[in-house]
Structures are given as structure tokens and as C-alpha cells.
């Protein structure tokens, strides 16, 4: 492979890992607060649809983005009411959210736009364009570093840069702020938080809302940045890969970024290659597709390291009497 080919795979890696990363960070907030979220997929899908639909009608990518985030946050609220206020089963709430999003997006898409569930193709204003970083053209002549800057780092959608910036923001919030401290505490030992006089449910709701916001960004990326319109089930299970990445990264922001890059790279690889040779044995492309899931299962089983989630995860908090 020459430099160009490598750069193009890495370029694709960045593009493909962006929604994973946003969703993964989204999941990080609620799971760190003790809410298992298998509804990332549904929130992304709902956001993707809302963003594309509103962008198509308004002709503005920004309004579309806002709409996507708003819908995702509303979905997160519903999940929060079920899982926090009503102390329902968090996992079943997630399943329901995913199904609801799949049904509603298809249904409304068909009803509103009559294009087999697709939203109308977006014009240049309706979607986010690639951003050329300063001096990209000028520096492209510089050997090695020039092409890396011009072709790999520059020229992505705004949301790509936001996603990677969010890694730093999340790490900062989680480890350097009062909110982060309490968030981490409530996922580990909600009773300690309660006896310190902080409301467990309020804190968990805040976390779930942030999850909604970030899922909104991830969903909008699919339909108004990477794509130019919404298509049926366009998130295609990425929410679950993000969940796998979150576990693989042991619920930490920086490892989450590397895991998402790895999973994005595997995705880029399998799109480019039909099969790969490894030590003379042909590796089918499906094996590469399944690798993130297999790795997660192996990690969860404790065969390589050990992934132990937040201790209070999955359990609604009830003040005992």
C-alpha cells in the first residue's frame, strides 16, 4: 500500500469512528451515573431522522442539528422517567426506545415525505460541509506531514472535530469538576451521595440528558453530515458498537477514543477490502466486522483484562427505610 492508500483508509477511519465516539461518550455519562443504556441506537436513529427532516424543510443544517438534539433529549427524558423516576428495568427501557425509534422514524418518514422512508436529499445548505483547516492547501507540498495535515486532519465535517474535542471536554468534566465527581460517585455508591445530601435522581437525570445531547450529535452526523438525508435504519447497529466500545474502554473517555478509532478502522478496512490475508490464511471480511463484538465478549469474560462497570449500574436507587 502506498501513502495515498494508507491516508485514505485513515481518513475513512476518522469519518467512521466519529459517530461511534459521540455515542460512546454519550453512553459514558449515563452508565457512569449508574444507568445502563442499551438505547443509544434508538436515540441516534431518532436524532438522525429529526435532523434530516428539519434540515430538509428548513434548508439549514444548523436548525436540523438543533432538532436532532432536541428529539434525542426528549427520547432520553422518556427513558429517564422509566428508569429513574418509575424505577423500571433500565434494559427493557432501552429495548423499547430502540424499537420505538425504528418504528416512528420509518413511519413518519414515509408519511411526511413519501420516499419509501427516506427524507429528501439535502442541498449544500442542508448538510454540513467539509472544513478546510487553515494552510491546508499551502502545506500539502511538505513531505509526509503535509499530506497528513491536508488530507487526513483537514477536510472533515465540523462534527468530527466536535467529537474529538468532546473527548477532552468529557475527561475534564469527569475528573476535574464537581459535577464529574458526583456523577462518578452516584454510579458507584449512590447511598454515599445520598448521605452527603445530594439528590441521586436529579444527578442521574442530568447524566441522561447529556447522553441525549451527545446522541443527538451522533445521529445528526449520520443524516446531515456523512449522508445527505435519512434512510431507513441508517444507524445500522452503530449504537451497539458504541456500547461495546464503551465496555472495551472500561468506561473511560480517552480509551473510548482509541477504541472507537480501532473499531472505526476495522470498519474502514472491511469496506475497502473484501478479504484480507493473515499469515497466509484468508480472513473473511465478516470476521473483521464481528471483531469488535468478539473482543468485547472476550474482555467481559475476563480473558484479557477485566471490564468491571460502575458498581451501582442497572439498579434503581431507593432510599431504604
Amino acid at each position, binding site marked *: 500500500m502506498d501513502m495515498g492508500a494508507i491516508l485514505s483508509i485513515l481518513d475513512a477511519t476518522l469519518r467512521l469512528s466519529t459517530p461511534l465516539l459521540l455515542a460512546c461518550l454519550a453512553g459514558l455519562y449515563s452508565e457512569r451515573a449508574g444507568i445502563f443504556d*442499551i438505547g443509544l441506537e434508538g436515540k441516534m436513529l431518532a436524532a438522525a431522522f429529526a435532523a434530516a427532516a428539519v434540515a430538509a424543510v428548513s434548508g439549514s443544517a444548523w436548525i436540523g442539528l438543533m432538532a436532532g438534539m432536541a428529539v434525542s433529549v426528549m427520547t432520553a427524558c*422518556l427513558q429517564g*422517567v*422509566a*428508569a429513574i423516576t*418509575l*424505577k*423500571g*428495568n*433500565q*434494559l*427493557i*427501557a432501552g*429495548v*423499547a*426506545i*430502540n*424499537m*420505538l425509534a*425504528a*418504528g*416512528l422514524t*420509518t*413511519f*413518519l418518514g*414515509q*408519511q*411526511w415525505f*413519501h420516499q419509501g422512508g427516506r427524507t429528501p436529499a439535502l442541498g449544500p445548505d442542508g448538510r454540513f460541509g467539509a472544513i478546510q483547516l487553515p494552510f491546508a492547501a499551502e502545506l500539502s507540498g511538505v513531505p509526509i506531514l503535509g499530506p497528513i495535515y491536508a488530507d487526513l486532519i483537514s477536510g472533515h465535517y465540523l462534527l468530527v472535530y466536535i467529537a474529538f474535542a468532546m473527548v477532552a471536554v468529557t475527561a475534564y468534566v469527569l475528573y476535574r469538576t464537581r459535577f464529574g465527581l458526583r456523577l462518578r460517585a452516584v454510579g458507584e455508591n449512590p447511598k454515599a451521595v445520598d448521605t452527603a445530601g445530594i439528590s441521586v435522581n436529579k444527578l442521574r437525570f442530568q447524566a441522561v440528558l447529556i447522553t441525549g445531547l451527545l446522541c443527538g450529535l451522533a445521529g445528526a452526523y449520520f443524516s446531515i453530515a456523512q449522508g445527505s438525508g435519512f434512510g431507513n435504519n441508517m444507524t445500522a*447497529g452503530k449504537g*451497539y*458498537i458504541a*456500547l*461495546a466500545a464503551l*465496555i472495551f474502554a472500561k468506561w473511560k473517555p480517552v480509551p473510548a477514543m482509541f477504541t472507537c478509532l480501532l473499531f472505526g478502522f476495522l470498519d474502514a478496512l472491511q469496506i475497502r477490502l473484501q478479504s484480507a490475508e493473515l499469515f497466509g490464511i484468508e480472513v*473473511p471480511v*465478516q*470476521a473483521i*466486522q*464481528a471483531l469488535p*463484538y*468478539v473482543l*468485547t*465478549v472476550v474482555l*467481559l*469474560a*475476563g*480473558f484479557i483484562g477485566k471490564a468491571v462497570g460502575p458498581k451501582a449500574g442497572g439498579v434503581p436507587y431507593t432510599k431504604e*427505610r
Partner: protein
Amino acid sequence: MSALRPLPRWADIALLPVLNLILAFLISGLVVLMIGQNPFVAMWAIVTGAFGNGYNIGYTLYYATNFIFTGLAVALAAHGGLFNIGANGQAYVAGLGVIVTALALDQTHWLIVAPVAMLAAALFGGVWAFVPGYLQAKRGSHVVITTIMFNFIAAALMIYMLNRVLKPAGVSGPESAMIEEAGRMPKLGQFFAPFNYTPVNFSIFVALLALVLVYILIWHTRFGYSLRTMGANPTAARYAGISNSRMIMITMTLSGALAGMVAFNEVLGVQNRLVLDFVADAGFVGIAVALMGRNHPIGIGLAALLFGALYQGGNELQYVISGLDRTVVVIIQALVILFTGAMEGLFRPGLQRGFALFSQESRAEALERSTVKSES
């Protein structure tokens, strides 16, 4: 003091699910109304589309067959306190077992093919669920996450198998060879004219039998007793000498085997070959069916029929109201899962309070109890 008296049995079994269902229908109705259609017309279209004639009923029963299997799979695991979210993957992989045995034996007779294929389906589906069960029992990994991952691994595996292994020469799409006529499961239409041209086949009897067998297993065997003990109170199970780890592995295997029966219906009875995504999310419908049916075979039978009718009626909807189709059923299904599974707290406390207020008997009883307690 915080615990309200539990609901009467009938309210728990029938009233609560029906209330949740009504709420789900109401909201879906609002969605339909929102797009400017009459929900009652839509409702009627679904009912006639599901039960209007033999053809419709045949399709309804065909869907119900799948949903009985996945509903039972989810319910059996639920009795042991396990959430099997991987019925989809288990059913998908079971397709391999069915197609391999069917293609090997299809020169003989379906009466020979069917039992072997059924065992193969159970075996493949069972193994696909055993692994998450083993990992939960012995390695402590959460069965929910593992079964989700196994759904995706199954999808990748099946794409590979269909594209590279099972695809016969001269076929372009990712699908296996057809099973010979002799080896196919007979369709009910061959014996009962109104069901002509519908996919409902002999597997529906397997499904009905499975309902009975699972009922017996859960409530009339030592295994079922142990299963329910583990699900209700794992500490009591340990006290009773029940090995929770062994029970988890066996239960998951049985659950996967039940899910695998979807492949038996679809591959041997309907498609007569292995195709991509033949499971069509039946595993997730199973979650709704099990929740709605309160994990009881009778409830599951009824809920499967309900969802079968919704799926079939939903298909017919588009011919009555242009633009409305089955996706509205997916919405209903999601709402049912939401209300019966995750928002149980919505109606239950109110109902309990209502019953406490209006039931003379329980009021007298409560009074009596409180006086006895305070005296001692």
C-alpha cells in the same frame, strides 16, 4: 409500611397488561391521527386484515408461530431471572442447523427431515445461547450484553456462511440451495383450502406443543421449580441446594433451543432455503410477547396471536389506507414493551391504592392486621 398489598391475581394477570395495551393503542392512535388519518379506520383495517378471511388468518397464524417460539424463549429465561435479548441471533444461527440437515436428508421424506432438523435447530440455537449462559455463570459477564454481542456475531457469521459456504454455484444472491419438495414441511393449505397460498405450516403444531411442554416444564417439573426459585430469590435457591450456575447454563440453552424453532418454521416450512435475515426481528417481538403474556404460556399464546394479527393486519393496512403500513405495528410493539416492561410503575401503585380503597374485604383485613400488630 411502604409496601402496598399486592394486586389480586386477576388484576395482575389480565387487567394490568390490558391497561398497558390500551395505552399503547391510544398513543399509536394519536400518531395515526397526527398524520391526518382516522385511527378507527386503521384499527378496523388491521382487524380485517388479520382475520378477514382464510388467507389473512393463515398469515396471522404463521407470524404467531414465530412469536410463540421467541416469546417462550424470553419467558423461560425470565422465569430464571435472566433477560435473553439474543433470541434473534439464536434463531438465526439455528437456521444453519436446519438447512444443513435438511439439504442432507431432503431426498427422503419430510417426516424424517423434520425431527432431525428440529433437533439441529434446537442444538444450534441452544449452543448459541449456552455460551452467554456459561460466561454469566462461570465468568460473571452480564448475559444481556453478551447476548446483544452474539446477535451481531451471528449476523456476521451467517452472511459469511451464505455468501461463501452455502451458496450453490449459479445463484447470485446470498442464499442456500432449495430444499427438495419431498423434504419440506407441509403447509396447512395443502389440507385446508382456506389457508391456501399462506405460509402457515405444520410447525404451528410444534409451537402449540411447545406451549404445553413449557407450561409443564415450568410448573410441573423439579427443574421448573428450581428455575422459578432461582428467578424469585437466588439466595433461597442456594439455601435449597440448587446450583444457580448450573441452572443458568441449562436455562439459557433451553431458551436458545426454543428461539431456534423460528428457523425450523421459516427455513423448513416457509422459505425452504436459508436466506439473509429470515428471523426479521422475531426475537425482539418475543420480548413484547413475553412481557405482555406475563411469562405464562397461555398469555404468550394469546400475545403471540395478537402480535401475529398486528403484523399481518399491518401488512394489509397499506391497501386500505395508502401510506400506512406495518411500521405502525412496530410502534405499538415498542410501546407495549415500554409500558409493560419498563414503566410498570405507571399503573401498579394507583391500581393497588384503588383496590385497597374499594375492596371492603381487604380494608377489613388491613384494619385487623394493624390492630393485631399494635397490640403485641
